[in-house]
């Protein structure tokens, strides 16, 4: 791993706010993420932590009432203030996205064929319709949809959920994007189908060497497929680093709580069989009025007075410069675990 790699895409100090009738919601508060070529980056966090919104912002897909500041740098462009006209050649062509809910993400009024071909031909203007159709069939075969020719003529409601999500993935990969943003692509699906979809996704990633951003709240999935992980909490990054390091030696109390709150089927029988699953006390902060200190402080077992005064910055660890965390406590993972158990 050479030290100064140039990132493919980098998010710089991104802030996102939503203007709602009941006040301004500060969904994302100054996050910095670098995405490198060919990596699978996991974004983990609870619902409402801003993990999806921050990546929606990169493609300009936020709702009308959102306002952003900061920058998303991609290929010398700042995607945040690029006009739609200039953003469109990037959308779906160089950066593609797969959404969470396959049931509603395809247009129910149009055939699969129409929706796939339009995605191809908008970026490859000289492609003929039969050629585009051929490419769609190939792509559907690739995501293991049998009888692709017939499926193309169908409407989304005639496909099963897993099938629709595979269509979504095929749709996203039609133009060989450099970056694929997968926003909880398997959350709405059965576990067995989930595994299939993940396999297909990983295969395609290796085959094409594209960067994948995998947004999820499922730590197991992250451990399985990601190389690096960003843990988000209340619109901020809590911890960033290689998956193995973060999961075996978590340094942020939130990451640790999250890990301890995750059921692990394999390990439960051996180590923790007698131990009840950990539940993080309290609820995430109200994002209309984020606290002035560390957002995790009210729920943190290791917090002290400093934590409620000031919001910690995301800084490299002393012993591992490729890892970052936003916490004043400089304890090791073991010490934090002790504190957590004690605090209960």
């Amino acid at each position, binding site marked *: 791993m050479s030290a100064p790699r140039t990132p493919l895409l980098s998010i710089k100090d991104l802030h996102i706010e939503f203007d709602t009738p009941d006040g301004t919601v500060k969904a994302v508060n100054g996050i910095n993420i670098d995405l490198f070529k060919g990596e699978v980056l996991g974004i983990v966090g609870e619902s409402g932590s801003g993990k999806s919104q921050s990546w929606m912002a990169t493609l300009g897909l936020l709702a009308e009432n959102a306002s952003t500041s900061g920058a998303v740098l991609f290929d010398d462009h700042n995607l945040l203030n690029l006009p739609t006209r200039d953003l*469109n050649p990037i959308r779906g062509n160089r950066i593609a996205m797969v959404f969470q809910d396959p049931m509603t993400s395809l247009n129910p009024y*149009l055939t699969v064929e129409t929706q796939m071909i339009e995605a191809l031909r908008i970026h490859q203007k000289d492609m003929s319709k039969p050629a585009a159709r051929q490419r769609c069939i190939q792509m559907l075969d690739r995501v293991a949809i049998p009888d692709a020719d017939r499926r193309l003529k169908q409407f989304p409601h005639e496909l099963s959920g897993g099938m629709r999500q595979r269509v979504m993935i095929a749709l996203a990969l039609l133009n060989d994007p450099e970056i694929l943003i997968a926003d909880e692509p398997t959350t709405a699906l059965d576990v067995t189908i989930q595994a299939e979809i993940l396999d297909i996704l990983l295969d395609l990633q290796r085959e094409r060497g594209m960067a994948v951003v995998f947004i999820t709240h499922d730590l197991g999935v992250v451990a399985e497929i990601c190389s690096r992980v960003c843990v988000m909490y209340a619109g901020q990054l809590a911890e960033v680093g290689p998956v193995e390091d973060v999961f075996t030696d978590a340094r942020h109390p939130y990451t640790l709580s999250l890990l301890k709150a995750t059921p692990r089927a394999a390990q439960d029988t051996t180590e923790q069989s007698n131990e009840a699953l950990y539940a993080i006390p309290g609820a995430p902060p109200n994002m209309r009025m984020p606290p002035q200190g560390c957002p995790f402080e009210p729920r943190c077992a290791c917090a002290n007075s400093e934590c409620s005064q000031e919001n910690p910055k995301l800084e490299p660890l002393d012993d591992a410069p490729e890892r970052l965390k936003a916490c004043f406590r400089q304890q090791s993972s073991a010490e934090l675990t002790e504190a957590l158990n004690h605090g209960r």
Partner: protein
Amino acid sequence: MAYALQRFGQMLIIVIIALFAVFSTQRLAPGGPFDGERPPPPAILENLRAYYDMDLSMPAQFYAYLFGMAGREIEANGTAGKAHWFVVPKNAEITTLGGTTDRSTDDDLFVRRFCPWDQWLGQVLPGARAHMRENGTVFRKCGVVRGDFGLSMARRSIYVNDYVRDGLPATLKYAIPSLLFALLLGVPMGFYAAYRQNKPADFIMITIGMFGTVVPNLVMAPLLIFLFAVQLDAFFHWLFVETLEWIELARRQRTLNLIPSGKTGGVMHYVLPTLVLGTGLLGRIVRLSRAGALEALRSNYVRTARAKGLPAHVILLRHVFKPAILPVLTYMGPVTAFILTGSLVIERAFSLPGLGRQFIAAATDRDYTLLMGTTVILLLAIILLNFIVDLLYTWLDPRIRRGGGRS
């Protein structure tokens, strides 16, 4: 298609129920078409009532109205049987339309009692006997199902069909243009407002929509008459009458006059009625199509479309149009109701000889047959338009097309 047909069948049932409801309530209500200031003598009244089948039971009357048959026993020698059409046995004595007395030669002869004043007028229908022998039933020549609405009760020499033939085109002449005006202008306006949500353009569209919905026809009509007919006329007079005589000439020849006067009006006579009805519809359609487009624009599939890099016009036309037009389509049923209700106001305000005017006249004069005739036409218009809407619906929404119903 199956869906649309099913809906059509349901609507037909409702139409028949509605017709029966109107039919029976008007006959059961106090008062009747024949009690004016100088009611006819009891004998004539009885004949009149018999002639219009009003001496029958309510279901029988309705049956007779629909199928033109009173469904009574046929009595010997053609002396009784007070129905429009009935079969006279052989050698019965009848009065023909020509006024001469005749004897029936066939065993089956059709007689229509044409005049209520106890004169028996008959007409020999060739082929009637053969028809009866073949079908085992009586040859039906009149009744609503055959397109015969009968004679008017208030003016007994005029057929309701003639009223309808005059009234329907007059109503359609402004109803259809106003619907087209509202749809062709309102849908793009609503879409544009949704696309520019919370921008000045949106605000203007919402205001137009609001005013169209809120300013009633009965305010709009006199207002436009005053502005265009009275004030504009005065304005033209002031502007042109001394300098350009030909304008005044044209005005006198009613080519510049926007107010309908007289029974046969030119195109210009329908401009203001169209505008009045059209703006009311426009407001509603702008609001509906805006709401529909907004919902579609916020949907996940439009987000997908944006993520594909599709330009705005493709998204609007391909991804938003169909789902956004559906609420407008659903509203077409109430729109028909709105037009029909509005026609009453408009035809009164502009003195147009349309169905709406006849409807009110029929209701106030207790002209049972005329009221039923106009009601039939109005109901037919409603189910026809609803049928078209359902067909469009099936065409637009694939989920209905392949089984299932509208949710």
